[in-house]
């Protein structure tokens, strides 16, 4: 008996202690800390480091654009209150007055001119958004004017992707020039940030955690109720799921398809899902005369359309959807998703799959009866199940005699390897996977301009055309559609250009992935179709 009562006493004491510990955080009034996790980290705190949705979406909490996207993805005033074209080739932006940066310095037209020029020079990865721009000038303390080389009706929406930094801060810390991701450069802005947004960067430990706190002096009325946000990269999917179930994190971004059912069964967790505007696709180097990573020397097999066709028509996207993606993908034949202006439904039909011997015959006709060997670059923490999709592709191509050497690596290394250099020289890849969402303009022209037009440092087109695909007819149509305002004429151009690139087998579009997020029941948030995660729409109960 004595023994039992002693245990009873001990456990009572333990309970009391646990109770005291449990009460402690509650007493801290209304401190709302929101913890969330993703497979990979934000590559940099510099908003021009990489034109990547996750990076831009994360930094939008700290920095703000002139014009931002609302919950329905429409444009709304942010740092600019009024904008428009004063003549076909001149845009004006009237800026919001009384806005302060996080360090208290006032926001003026100087910051805007400085930021736009910074985004258009040095190692910036955002130059594609400045293809039409001739001159950016200050026209008063709170007015900026932009002269374009030709009428560019999309300029304001393009610049929803350009975040505005503090000029004084950048100059003081010697970060006037954007660091070059393709050279692994760093400067003060890589690990620090000074914007006007709803959250202030408190702590940044690359690869470990990033802490944001509420900006008490934000110009807008906060729709969130957070005081602190902790972001942690957790590479392993199972660990991420376990952390969410245990309540160690409040939200996980991009749930792997194999875990959605399991999470849906958990009474404490909400699974939020919807289709995404991103197209995940494969591309091949069609630019070099000899592939970097292949056993074929002296010529480039991908310059032959038959080789591209054999690849394209041997990849079974339905099988990928069924197994790797567990039904959570939408196979496609186009480089744009439904919901984007310029999506051509009648052309969204993939050609039938070839039997291995038919594909081998195509390869033999092209002069590769024995097949060949090629390197294949893939991220392993960027898109949903990216590495697994690539492994599946390796198997599918092995059956037609192509030996694919897969190199799957973390996003920062992967992007640095494959993307074009800041001078538009080609990256180091022969065959690669990439995803693209025209998240700035929601218009197909962005896809033509960034992915399909011939890359050129002079015209700033084709910055993300990693493959170097080049078709003069497509180039001309894309240039014309940029300035065309007559909808019917423009749609005809889009149809024509879409036909051209799909018939060329320029790329192998795979699918749009479903966006699947999961959060604890006490979190309410908003999920836009471009997979951005704005913290300003998060509330914690």
């Amino acid at each position, binding site marked *: 008996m004595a023994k039992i009562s002693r245990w009873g006493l001990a456990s009572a004491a333990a309970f009391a202690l646990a109770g005291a510990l449990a009460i402690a955080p509650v007493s801290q009034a209304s401190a709302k800390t929101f913890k969330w996790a993703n497979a990979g980290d934000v590559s940099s705190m510099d908003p021009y480091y990489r034109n990547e949705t996750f990076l831009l979406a994360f930094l939008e909490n700290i920095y703000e654009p002139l014009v931002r996207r609302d919950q329905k993805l429409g444009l709304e005033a942010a740092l600019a209150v009024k904008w428009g074209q004063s003549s076909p080739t001149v845009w004006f932006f009237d800026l919001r007055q009384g806005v302060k940066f996080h360090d208290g310095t006032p926001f003026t037209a100087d910051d805007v001119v400085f930021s736009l020029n910074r985004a258009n020079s040095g190692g910036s990865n955002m130059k594609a958004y400045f293809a039409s721009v001739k001159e950016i000038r200050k026209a008063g303390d709170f007015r900026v004017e932009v002269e374009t080389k030709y009428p560019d009706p999309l300029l304001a929406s393009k610049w929803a992707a350009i975040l505005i930094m503090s000029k004084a801060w950048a100059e003081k810390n010697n970060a006037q020039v954007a660091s070059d991701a393709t050279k692994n450069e760093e400067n003060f802005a890589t690990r620090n940030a000074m914007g006007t947004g709803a959250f202030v960067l408190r702590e940044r430990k690359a690869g470990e955690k990033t802490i944001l706190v509420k900006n008490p002096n934000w110009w807008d009325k906060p729709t969130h109720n957070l005081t602190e946000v902790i972001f942690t990269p957790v590479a392993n999917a199972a660990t991420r799921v376990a952390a969410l179930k245990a309540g160690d994190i409040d939200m996980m971004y991009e749930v792997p398809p194999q875990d959605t059912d*399991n999470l849906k069964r958990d009474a404490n967790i909400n699974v939020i899902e919807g289709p995404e505007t991103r197209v995940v696709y494969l591309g091949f180097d069609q630019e070099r005369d000899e592939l970097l990573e292949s056993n074929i020397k002296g010529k480039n097999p991908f310059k032959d359309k038959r080789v591209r066709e054999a690849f394209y028509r041997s990849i079974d996207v339905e099988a990928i959807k069924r*197994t790797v993606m567990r039904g959570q993908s939408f196979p496609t034949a186009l480089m744009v998703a439904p919901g984007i202006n310029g999506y051509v439904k009648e052309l969204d039909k993939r050609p039938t799959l070839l039997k291995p011997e038919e594909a081998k015959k195509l390869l033999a006709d092209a002069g590769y009866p024995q097949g060949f060997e090629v390197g294949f670059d893939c991220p392993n923490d960027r898109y949903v199940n990216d590495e697994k999709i690539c492994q599946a592709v390796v198997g599918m191509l092995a059956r037609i005699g192509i030996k694919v*050497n897969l190199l799957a690596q973390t996003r920062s290394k992967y992007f640095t390897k494959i993307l074009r250099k800041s001078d538009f020289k080609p990256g180091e890849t022969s065959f690669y996977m990439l995803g693209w969402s025209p998240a700035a303009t929601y218009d197909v022209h962005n896809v033509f301009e960034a992915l399909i037009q011939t890359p050129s440092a002079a015209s700033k087109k084709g910055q993300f055309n990693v493959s170097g695909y080049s078709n003069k007819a497509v180039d001309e149509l894309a240039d014309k559609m940029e300035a065309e305002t007559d909808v019917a004429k423009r749609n005809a151009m889009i149809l024509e250009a879409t036909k051209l690139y799909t018939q060329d087998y320029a790329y192998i579009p795979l699918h749009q992935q479903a966006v699947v997020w999961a959060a604890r029941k006490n979190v309410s948030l908003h999920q836009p179709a471009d997979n951005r995660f704005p913290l300003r729409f998060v509330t914690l109960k």
Partner: protein
Amino acid sequence: MALIDSFRRAADSDIWHSFRASPMTMAAAAVTLFIVLAAFLAPLIALQNPFDPANLNLSDAMRPPMFFGGEWSFPMGSDDQGRDLYSAILYGTRLSLEVGLAVVFFSMILGIGLGLVAGYVGGTLDAIIMRIADVQLTFPAILIALLIDGVVRGVISVKRHEEIAVFVIVASISLAFWVQYARTVRGSVMVERNKEYVQAARVIGLPRWLIMFRHVLPNVMGPVLVIATINLGLAIITEATLSFLGVGLPSTQPSLGTLIRIGNEYLNSGEWWITIFPGLTLAALVLAVNLLGDWLRDALNPKLR
């Protein structure tokens, strides 16, 4: 005749008797033999070559094992790429055993060589070798293996690394494991070198290296063999750990550890077989080898007879 004689001698020896007297040891030996044979015969008894991507069909992915709604063509189910797990385990065990044996072989050669020299020559050379060993003993073996592997990865390209991954992992675990051999051998050598037979060999003018390898070495091999057996299990586990952490063998040629890592991602989603079967195989193999090692240590220890 000589062969039969040596069989008779072996059958009559203390070791054989102690083996026959311990059912646990016999069971361990049977399990080891079974796994080694299965791994050795993998190309004959596997249903597919899991290392050849052309054999994998995505539509076969995630098949459950037999008796859990699966079919005969995938007796232990299949993984996320449609790889037959039974075949993958056979080939994976083969890889794990190869790595384990290679590690034991190389670390033994390195450890015996350095231990002999240190113990027999003594002096400054002894001090240097043993201080290196001491420093290395302060790190866990896995950390050293991680370090070596990390440095190699930094130096060569990822693609080259995949081709030579097996050699890198053997080298890094071997370099982590030599210390035990070296210390044991050195200790025994220091005892042996003052014995009469060594002095006699010296008196007749035999060269140092010949005395070391022909006369001293055979007399210190007993404890070395025990360490080798126990280290085989440890080496296999270390390789599996490294592969599980993603720094060992790539998923294109999965060892048991790599298979467990692949399966780990699906544990939450109900596909338990991808990680459980390789895990059980690994546990059975290492347990059996360790039991054999324990028995050998006891059998060779005269005080325990």
